[in-house]
């Protein structure tokens, strides 16, 4: 019996004994990434070099960071893959506790134009990694442009290019413009009115609002055409914005006219301008 008691004592003490070790400083915190460039929504031309600027911090020692770029074409509900899309994935060694990294990323000259995810992740020397679960890995959207993609011109009634649209509440928006493809043919045009996730603020890209249903969204098949006018596509539509629509928006959010064109080669181009109401 006495022996059993000793065993028992050992059992009870053992965990307590080892738990003391927990106080040892074990590095379990992941690195922090502050991405300065590119910013969310930035356009990058195919065939050029994009400079990535970021601050990497870790409490003990950094080890590796990675840059990944892959297309986000599926995100626009088409999912057709005509050509092999550009993707990029490299990782780089890095040291220290606070490092500013500048990395040149060459965008393939053959890259299909369109929206791409730009992702940056980091691991420290102990293996602690940034994660998507807690938003410490960075993911933004960039738009790659190329020579052959369709061009979208948004204009006023007098054929002058505009960078914002003036509208009146309760009245149909007057939308003019042209989508043209100089080197091939068009496939379809998507016109929508809604809010757009804006560029990253000082707090990273922590907007966290879902792109909910647009006020207006219509897709037009224009296969084989080389040029179409928006006013023709929208001839039978009248897009009316009311005060109620504006009330739905959260602070700092604005309504946009978004025109997205896909050409016969799968290039996606986009032009978005803010809609102003007096």
């Amino acid at each position: 019996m006495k022996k059993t008691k000793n065993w028992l004592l050992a059992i009870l003490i053992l965990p307590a004994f080892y738990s003391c070790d927990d106080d040892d400083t074990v590095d379990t915190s992941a690195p922090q990434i502050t991405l300065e460039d590119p910013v969310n929504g930035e356009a990058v031309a195919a065939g050029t070099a994009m400079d990535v600027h970021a601050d990497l911090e870790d409490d003990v020692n950094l080890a590796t960071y990675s840059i990944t770029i892959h297309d986000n074409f599926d995100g626009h509900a088409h999912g057709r893959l005509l050509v092999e899309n550009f993707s990029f994935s490299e990782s780089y060694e890095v040291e220290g506790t606070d490092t500013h990294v500048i990395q040149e990323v060459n965008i393939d000259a053959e890259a299909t134009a369109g929206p791409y995810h730009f992702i940056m992740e980091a691991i420290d020397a102990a293996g602690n990694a940034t994660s998507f679960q807690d938003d410490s890995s960075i993911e933004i959207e960039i738009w790659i442009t190329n020579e052959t993609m369709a061009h979208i011109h948004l204009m006023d009634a007098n054929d002058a290019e505009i960078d914002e649209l003036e509208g009146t509440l309760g009245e149909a928006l007057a939308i003019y413009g042209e989508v043209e493809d100089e080197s091939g043919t068009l496939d379809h045009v998507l016109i929508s009115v809604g809010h757009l996730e804006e560029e990253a603020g000082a707090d990273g890209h922590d907007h966290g609002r879902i792109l909910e249903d647009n006020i207006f969204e219509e897709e037009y098949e224009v296969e084989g055409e080389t040029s179409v006018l928006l006013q023709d596509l929208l001839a039978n539509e009248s897009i009316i914005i009311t005060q109620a629509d504006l009330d739905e928006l959260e602070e700092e959010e604005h309504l946009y006219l978004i025109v997205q064109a896909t050409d016969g080669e799968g290039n996606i181009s986009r032009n978005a301008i803010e809609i102003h109401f007096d």
Partner: protein
Amino acid sequence: MKCFFWLIIGLLASTSGLAQLQLSGVIYDAESKEPLPGAIVSIHELDVSIVTDIEGKFLFENIRPATYHLHISYMGFKAQTMVKSIRGQGEYLRVYLESTALELNEIIVESNHYKTGPKEQTLSMEILDAEFLAKNRKGTFVNSLEDIPGISAINTGVGISKPVIRGMSFNRVIVNDKGVKQEGQQWGTDHGLEIDMFEPGRVEVIKGPGSLMYGSDGLGGVINIFPPAIPQDKEIEGSIQGIYKSNNHLVGSSTVVQGKKNDWVYRGRFSTQDFGDYRVPADQFTYNGYILPIYNERLKNTAGQERNFTLMSGIKKSWGYSTLTLSNFHQKAGLFVGAVGIPRSYQLDHDGSYRNVDIPRQETKHLKVASNSNILIGGHWLEMDWGYQRNQREEHSDPTAHGQQEGPDGTKEHGLDLQTLSVNTRYFWQSSESRTRIIGIQGQYQWHDWGGFAFLLPKFRTSNIGLFLYEEYSWANRFTVTGGLRVDYAIRDITGYSESDDSDFFQYNEDIYRTYFNVSGALGMSFYPNERINLKLNLGTSYRVPSPNELSINGLHHGTFRYELGDSSLGTERGVQMDFGLSYQEKDFSLVVTPFTSYFDGFIYLAATTQFSSDFNPFLPAESGQIYQYRQNDALFAGAEIAMEFHPLKALHWRAAYEYVYNYNLDTKLPLPFTPPGSLYTELEYGFELNHDWLEDIHLGTHAKWVFDQNRVDRNENTTSGYWLLGLNAGMGIRLGENTVSQLSFSAQNLLNKEYYNHLSRYRLLNLPEQGRNFVISFQIPFAIK
């Protein structure tokens, strides 16, 4: 198999000249000394049982001279197990049963390996009967065991779960179904246990090292699943069970037909489950900095289906019994759309149906043929559990989302095909009523093949052979000592694999051929000075041979959201384990405390590396994350379970159970991953017999579970806050005929519709809460045809 039966018949013929004896007796109530009619008397070795007559008498005829284990049980009385050597003139027994209010004591312990009663065993064990399993029926078989102290489950949604015993899971828990070790793909987090939840008739959970008798992998514990007993007096009978769950509109059914004709027994079962997307108490979740929608609070694409069948036939003779069982488990289960890759809001739009199973999904088929025999040879018993299994697992996802073109495999990302042959043979040498020796041999041969558009696990062949000797000796009616020794030899033969195209070449793994030899042993003691007190101590060494995935996996495994890499140089994982059991029992009160501690040399786990997979493997899609590689470190485990049962009134039952596991990686100075948080479970139930015209009995109960915070986590693992859940249950027995009582039960889980996170859930990694409020209605209607 045919020649196997001929062999038995040959044996039978060769021994038929032996004398045939009688075993008879009377069962009494120890207090009133009145005979007990309706008590069940079983002979373990022959798998037969009879019910005592109006005078409490029983009679077995045609008994051969040998040593038998008798189990005597009767509702409201403590079950008894006795060892009887029957020679010469046969045996006439007078057995006195003690009354008890504790349900657990009513259950007979008739483990195949440990035949003696609960007090003689040196390892702590939980025995669950069909009634417990029916009452605690949850989404899967494993989830029904979750509230037992020391047991938890790793879940993927609601249809997929795998067992955890004392914080150990994957290849560290052995599940023996009909004596044959279940060999699915138990290394994967999202690979559920392939067991029809309606089929188990009795379950035995051994907490603590089971390597000695069950082989490699038994470090954490062993779950033995036994089929339900075949009735002795009916030629054809059966039952229909039905279940409905409100949360995911699950409809399940199980029909069984079984019987006995002369010496032949048979059983057939067919079970189904069809469920829709399950409901969580949230309409959005946060991931990757986005607030993502959960349409109508139902997790998209978590529906599924299950179709299982079992066919059994066998013979029971005075020389023993032999049965052959064929079963097939088939599950198709959807995975939440965001579970493969990063969830995007556009994927989460409603697809028009809550019951469709789209991609990503997994489809699992598990075919099993098991032969179980117990034969009297030379006055002792030879037990044989042989089996063949084929586990076919397919994981489907969209290849274009992985940056690949859709090829001949379509959406099949992984197709894993594992076949296993198992042979377990044990000879029980009962030299006297107090001394048993078991000599056992265990062999297993496996071969694996794969398909699909992404590589994960190569082709391999493994073989294991183990020999063990186990001794049990009891004396003075208060001590039992057990001890055993085991030697093992294992081969891991893995085929190399590489991939190449015009510009790139990648060697996933080289050919690997490794052999492992191991010696292990255990020593145990049980002390039971009186009916109330029982002290147990078990000390043993255990071991585990690295599994093929630990040696050679190389690929993106969605089950863990990361790139997993094997290490072909891993050695055997060895442990020194110490287990205690202290129990105190009164007629209406029981307290069991089971502390444990163990030290592992070379504990294998997935450790974070400082490397990204994207530029490690050129054939990988972008965005594949950090590499995790299998590594060996020394580790320490400790913990305890405390279980209490109290009946202030005979009709009132109160049970409480506490569990805690502590582990520590001695090299990283961090806890190990996937450690269940401590928890406290309590249930209060009021049940009484009515003996009304049609209402037989009724019970009402409530239960609550407190799960504590889990702040002890491994690197890159998230802490999880605690929560508590409330549940209700009610049930009644409805008399349909003279001998037919159907059961109707109602239960509510997560009654308060709490939004909580389960530390062991795979969807925890996506910040998804667990299943919301769930009402369950189930019934069982028995029928007897002949």
